[in-house]
């Protein structure tokens, strides 16, 4: 909307002593150089729910936990195998995605469904994409894509480590090709 920087004298008036005007002028130049700060989207108005033991897990540790506690976590969150959206797979084995959420909050009920969840997502059966193209994992609500959880390559069985800094109740996940809104897979709602 703005096309040119404002005039400093117009901003502060003509009665500013030269020394102060020079000082304000340096700030003025920095403001012009910096440009506008971005607006935060509503979903980022508050910091990620990084409380509790979820987000503070070192990566190496939560990867280990992800590997060991998969079945338990799946049961705890009710996240299961994704059903392929494509109906015309012609008898081919359906792509499958499994989410493993290592911290199910059994010892910290208040944080059980809100947190910065480290997740291990195992993908099987997704075809490899041409060079430069990627899949994208989305958080969904009421079947709509509401936030990107990141992009990934899939080759054979692929494990992708992600963080989900969102409130999870009422949410699910879906996979698309990056740049496309067509759902290739989706979970049921948590």
């Amino acid at each position, binding site marked *: 909307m*703005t096309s040119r920087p404002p005039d400093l004298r117009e901003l502060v008036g003509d009665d500013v002593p030269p020394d102060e005007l020079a000082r304000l002028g340096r700030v003025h130049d920095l403001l012009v150089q910096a440009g506008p700060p971005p607006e935060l989207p509503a979903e980022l108005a508050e910091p990620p729910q990084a409380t509790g033991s979820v987000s503070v897990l070192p990566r190496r540790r939560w990867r280990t936990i992800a590997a060991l506690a998969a079945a338990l976590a799946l049961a705890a969150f009710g996240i299961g195998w994704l059903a392929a959206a494509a109906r015309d797979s012609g008898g081919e084995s359906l792509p499958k995605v499994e989410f493993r959420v290592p911290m199910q909050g059994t010892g910290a009920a208040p944080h059980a469904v809100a947190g910065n969840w480290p997740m291990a997502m195992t993908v099987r059966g997704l075809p490899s994409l041409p060079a430069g193209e990627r899949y994208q994992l989305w958080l969904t609500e009421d079947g709509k894509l509401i936030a990107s959880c990141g992009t990934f390559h899939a080759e054979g069985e692929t494990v992708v480590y992600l963080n989900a800094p969102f409130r999870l109740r009422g949410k699910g996940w879906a996979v698309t090709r990056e740049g496309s809104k067509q759902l290739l897979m989706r979970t049921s709602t948590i």
Partner: protein
Amino acid sequence: MPRVSERVSDGDLIQRVGTGDRSAFEALYRRFARPVLGLALRRLGDRGRAEDALQETFTSVWRSASTYKPERGPGAPWLYAVARNAIVDRGRSRAEAPADPPEEEAIEPGPPEQAEAAWISWRVHRALEELPEHERTVLELAYWSGLSQSEVATFLDIPLGTVKTRTRSALARLAGILEEELQ
């Protein structure tokens, strides 16, 4: 939940975050969320990835704040480094088609100039967050809304003289905050 005073230094906040202080974490987020997002947008050029980098930055802050050593420097550069790492990680994850080498001399700023500009934006945006709301508002309207001072006065429903007074006060306050850059 108790609010952390805006006068607490960045370094103090980071140290408190390192002890698991949630209110300090929220205060730090209020101060730095827009500067981090601005830096990420500048580096990544993509809103979605920049927002991801913002979240990753603060996840990293929460996880690693206890490693911050105040004797090694103020908090803002430490957080800048954390943000830069998160942004670089996010940038690496982007699949890009190999580009042909440019045939003409690049006219865009080189890496040193880009780094300098990014750092200045970071500090300015960070300093803006320290201004009182009524001063920050007049500055943002004056510099980036395209409104004249008279239009700002009409928009805010305050006298033109008040707009100029607030603008001058805001610039002076900002000058104090940005003293390092001005020296």
